[in-house]
């Protein structure tokens, strides 16, 4: 009976992230539009886009291989599994004990690998540009992400996200400069990974600057819907990760019982809304940088994460 209940909560979490992901993207777009004094599309526009794309016919290039057709589903599945592993409104869910933060990074990395392969599969020049840029960004973002994981693991004594969240919520975490550096580095990595301004512009098809859009240019119909949905999920995933590690308050725990779940969900949605507003304000305030400056930006994230890890060795606990 207890097992069934746990599985039901885990299933509810997976459904919740699936339902919230397009809403979050719609919310960020709406806030950005309002900041520019435009009306903006309605909040449910991403759902409508997904439904429309699902119904449309798939147009495939003649030389597209099986990889090109499989990749959208692979990307969606890996991103969804990674999102299911993150404690969103409750810690200690059933699936979160099966894999840790490093596994989440690996899942996202394999999704990116397949997307880069699919971008080059048809052999158009835009796909090639997009893939090469994506891999350039990834080669700097992933080491930075792993270093952030290391410094979190050194502080909390585990790479298990539920344990990390429990430690961060307890008073023994103290005031640490390394955690501040990790937070800034994680935000920079998240901005780069989700192809947001200043690294990439998610709403443009201007071919000289695009990274993510260039790779998915050949996709249409339900394939494109899957890729778009995976992109929405990835934004939600990174925001949940930041909230779970650095703002762990209000999460339901396994001991508190099922009645703490509802406040947990409310707190989670509130945290996502705050993150969404912050992201929209940040994106409105800043200009997109040149592609050649992206290595500097991510190099700074890598440097911050590395410095945070180094500073831990002279801190109180180690």
């Amino acid at each position, binding site marked *: 009976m207890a097992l069934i209940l746990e599985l039901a909560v885990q299933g509810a979490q997976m459904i919740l992230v699936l339902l919230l992901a397009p809403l979050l993207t719609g919310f960020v777009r709406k806030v950005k539009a309002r900041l520019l004094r435009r009306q903006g599309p309605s909040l449910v526009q991403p759902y409508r886009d997904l439904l429309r794309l699902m119904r449309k016919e798939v147009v495939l290039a003649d030389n597209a291989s099986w990889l090109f057709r499989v990749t959208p589903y692979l990307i969606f599945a890996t991103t969804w599994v990674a999102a299911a592993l993150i404690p969103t409104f409750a810690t200690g869910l059933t699936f979160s004990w099966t894999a840790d933060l490093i596994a989440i990074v690996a899942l996202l990395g394999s999704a990116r690998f397949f997307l880069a392969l699919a971008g080059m599969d048809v052999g158009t020049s835009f796909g090639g540009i997009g893939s090469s840029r994506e891999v350039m960004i990834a080669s700097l973002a992933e080491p930075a992400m792993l270093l952030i994981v290391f410094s979190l693991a050194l502080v909390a004594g585990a790479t298990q996200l539920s344990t990390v969240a429990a430690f961060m919520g307890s008073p023994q975490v*103290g*005031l*640490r*400069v*390394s955690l*501040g*550096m990790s937070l800034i580095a994680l935000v920079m990595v998240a901005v780069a990974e989700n192809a947001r301004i200043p690294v990439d512009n998610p709403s443009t098809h201007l071919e000289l600057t695009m990274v993510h859009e260039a790779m998915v240019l050949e996709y249409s119909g339900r394939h494109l819907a899957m890729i778009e949905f995976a992109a929405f999920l990835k934004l939600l995933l990174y925001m949940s990760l930041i909230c779970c590690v650095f703002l762990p308050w209000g999460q339901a725990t396994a001991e508190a019982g099922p009645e703490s779940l509802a406040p947990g969900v409310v707190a989670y949605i509130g945290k996502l809304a705050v993150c969404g507003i912050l992201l929209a304000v940040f994106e409105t305030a800043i200009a997109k940088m040149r592609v050649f400056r992206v*290595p*500097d930006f991510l*190099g*700074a994230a890598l*440097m*911050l994460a*590395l*410095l945070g890890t*180094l*500073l831990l*060795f*002279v*801190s*109180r606990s180690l």
Partner: protein
Amino acid sequence: MNGLTFDIAHLLAGGLVLVSFMMLYQDRLFALINVFALHAVVLALSVAWQAYIQDAHHLYVTAAIALVFKAIVIPVGLHRIIQRLGIHRDIETAVGIGPTMLGGIGLVALSMVLMLRVTPEADPLAREDLAFALSIILLGLLVMVTRRNAVSQVVGFMSLENGLVLAATGAKGMPLVVEISVAFSILIAFIVIGVFLFRIRERFDSVDVGALDDYRGEHR
């Protein structure tokens, strides 16, 4: 010792190392000088915190010296010098920013390995301060080595001195006379360097120290 006092000292000293890295990252002269002013402000905060936890009142004087001279007088003076020299405001670096950052990380790691090996039985606060101070000194040297422009070399020299002050306050029982004389000598050095800058500029029409190499007959 209370955990929180240590954490705040760690936060301020770690922030000082971070600001040193920001100095390595800058490629504009004015931005570099503003970051240097920030460095001095963080140093003043750190020294004031040390004065509070060690209950050493003379350290407040050191903090005030850092705040007044290094955060206000010297940056304003450098701004004036740059305006009067009318030089290019972007810094020519001898090495690119990426390798410089990696070198800086390596120096921080080196100083930590060294200090943690050498001082296993010291007070943890002094130990941590010494490790940070050594890395700030090495980073200041790195700024001086990687920049071709004489003004940015001056800034590197000043940030190196901030590291010395941090080391001095971390060790208990540093007399005030020593600190005042150090601060005074830095000010003298600043004035002398300022005079030198104008002389270099008069003779070579540039503060790029590469011009000195040609004058000495060295060829790169």
